[in-house]
């Protein structure tokens, strides 16, 4: 698509979409959002970029191969599940560590395996969709 307006606008849009996708990922536990939705938005950001500037440039912008990204995501999700063994719980039991307190109410924030799992989902969706989308783009 050889539209200067689209190309110029896409660059700004992509940045916004990516930030938005992270925002959706992180708020997911309490408000609409999560890894799946975040990943979709992230994928759309790169697809917009690919439509505007070509998939070669979008691949460069992503830096890593989308297939690899998806695999890493699956690995991250698996790790989030395996962490529970360290604490003696069954597979995929959510683990919570409170920073600055000892419960949800008193802690400033938490480090938890549930968010790690969601990040894995985010990467899988992002990488999976992009590997299809780029392949589609490059097919001709």
């Amino acid at each position, binding site marked *: 698509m050889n539209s200067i307006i689209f190309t110029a606008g896409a660059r700004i849009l992509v940045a916004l979409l990516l930030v938005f996708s992270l925002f959706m990922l992180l708020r*997911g536990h309490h*408000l609409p959002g999560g890894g799946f*939705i975040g990943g979709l938005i992230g994928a*759309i950001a790169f*697809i917009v970029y690919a439509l505007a500037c070509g998939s070669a440039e979008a691949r460069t912008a992503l830096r890593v191969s989308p297939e690899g990204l998806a695999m890493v995501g699956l690995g991250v999700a698996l790790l989030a599940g395996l962490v529970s063994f360290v604490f003696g719980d069954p597979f*995929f039991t959510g683990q919570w560590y409170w920073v600055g307190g000892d419960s949800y109410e008193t802690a400033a924030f938490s480090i938890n395996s549930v968010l790690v799992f969601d990040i894995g989902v985010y990467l899988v969706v992002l990488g999976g969709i992009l*590997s299809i989308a780029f392949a*589609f783009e490059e*097919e001709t």
Partner: protein
Amino acid sequence: MAEHSDANAPWVNLAGMATVALTAALFAFFLQYLPVVAAGSPVQWSWNWIPSLQINLSFWLDGLSLMFALLITGIGAFVMLYAARYLAGHPQYNRFALYLFSFMLSMLGLVLADNLIAIFVFWELTTFTSYLLIGFSHTDPKSRRNALQALLLTAAGGLALLAGFILIGVTQGTFEMSELNAAGSMAEQPYYLGILILVLLGAFTKSAQVPFHFWLPNAMAAPTPVSAYLHSATMVKGGVYLLARMHPSLSGTDVWVWVLTIFGAVTAVFASFMALRQIDLKQTLAYTTLMALGTLVMFLAGSTGYAITAAMTFLIVHSLYKACLFLTIGVIDHATGTRDADVLGGLARAMPITAMMALLAGLAMAGIPPFLGFIAKEVAYAGGLSMALTVFVVLMSLAAFALMFAVAAIVAYRPFFGPQGALPRKPHEGPWPMLIGPATLAVLGLLAGLMPGVTAYYLVEPAVAAVMSAPDTGGRLKLWAGFNLPLVLSLATFALGFVLYWFHQDLRALLARIEARGPNLDAGWDRMLERFMDFAKLQTRVIQTGVMHQYLFATFTVLALAIVVPMVLRPVGGMTLTFAGLSFLEWGIGFLICAGTVLVLLTSSRIVALTGLGVVGIGVALIFIVYSAPDVAITQLLVELLVVVLLAVALLKMPHLDPDNRQVHRPMDAILALVVGGLTAAVLLLVVETPFDRRLTDFFEGASWMEAFGRNIVNVILVDFRTLDTFGEIAVVIIAALGAFALLKGGLKRGAEGEAEKEDSK
């Protein structure tokens, strides 16, 4: 066939040395449990995995598993060291090291796991990793074919095994092997026969019992270190391990005794004759592995102390000499460039160390005193005399051991001291990393025989106790057990074996003639696979016409039938359709969806039709928003967007719709569409009629915040309550993405490769 190896290439690299070191460390780790386990207290580690399905990750270290663990890690470390030198300079060595190490870990998991489901998973992991190892020379079609054969056969057996395990779990109420064995024999259980058959199918395919034996000699396609490992301590011993492990639960019945004795004995004797028949030394050894497996299965048929002691002692002896001899053959192959039994000879002068250790291993194999092999043979005869079907077992053992004596001479004596043929290369001694392993194993075979008391106390008796599920009385392993029937049988074995060796070249010709007349299971396997592929092609031709319209039509027809048939067979109450109380917004959304649909139906442009579909999808997303399901709505919206964009890219490349072609199908399509739509609506209305069950909703509403600290229930379900499901789903996302990627990217290339392969087969 010392393929790819380069004498001058550096062989020390990170992947190789790390795997050797880790395996050796594991060996040391297990070694420290030797006194504990020998004293009679098994060690247990356990983690809950999926408690709701009784699936635990539990490990159980008793005499049997410890013996296996030591063999696996000990021989494994030597094999890995050997392989590092053997495959030095091979471009894919790192990959090989990874395969071999994963295989070692899977095998270790198999012998340590206590939960049946875990045993099954490790069982299949050994199948997969051995597939990668056997097919390591993946450019060779024969290698690929043999790897696939091993995979299909052992995986099919694995499925039977899974069915058997599930039957056990369901009828016995536990999946823990230690609990099952403690509960005693299952012989009185109603499903005993079914369980036994399924488990035996798994064990017999893995341990290559006749008639499933043919994959094992073919697995020789693997590089020599792999063969040494697969044949000595691992893979094929998996089935034997399982039979030993489940011995307390399943043994003792007439079926067990008869089936194991007959299959084991037939395998042992058949394989020893086949071993004598081979010219390639590696093939000879492959068949002696079959012989050993048959013998082990035969002795596991018994339940007496002597029978089990015979099985366990022979298992150790066999692992030691078999690994050593395979590795030795590799050294010979490396040095001379051939494995032909008729050509090899007189190598002792050029390769004194190799000759020495081959001789030691050969003496153990032939069962000459004072090697452990001799003791194993004595105990085996004593075991045979104590078992049911005594005469049959003893005669079959005599035949197998005598043939083994002859084969040992062919493999370990003749290449070094026999007449020399025309060698392709001038022989030279092997490098030390390839000698240290076999040498250690050969010396161990001698030491274990010289100190039968130590061997018995630390290795054999704890294993026997585990198999018998009772403390072992011990005292059976002796170098001199007095002048008794087993000793006479031993002497008869030597005499018979010597005669067989003397005439082995005549016998080989005779056996080759017999083999040519007999049924060829290997070729039969190929024919069976061919039939199967023909059937698959036929089915594909009939079902997969390649016309999208027909696929959709068939799918929706089946969907309609699937809804109608239950509705007619089991009619449920009526339904009410009311439009009262719908807001303006809801009417608007409905109108939007209908408008989108009409647009799709009327347009003759693909892009417009796609846009129309997008409108429908967005309408559905709006409905989700109106009924306050924002998560679903956002996902729906985004997916809809992506589908439109992706399809638009694809559709740009497709030809215009053909108006003439469309008109032919239209009336039928319309009817089907109306029927499916109407039925779906009817089902939804029926569902709405039944009162809503709030139990799950209440649970998630309550627990989502209290237990999982999340206010977004949908997300909490996805990432906490039902994480395993989500994990499965994202795995599917990846598989789908890779599938689409392969289709889009690989289409042309694969076509070209297919042509190339056709050329090859000509």
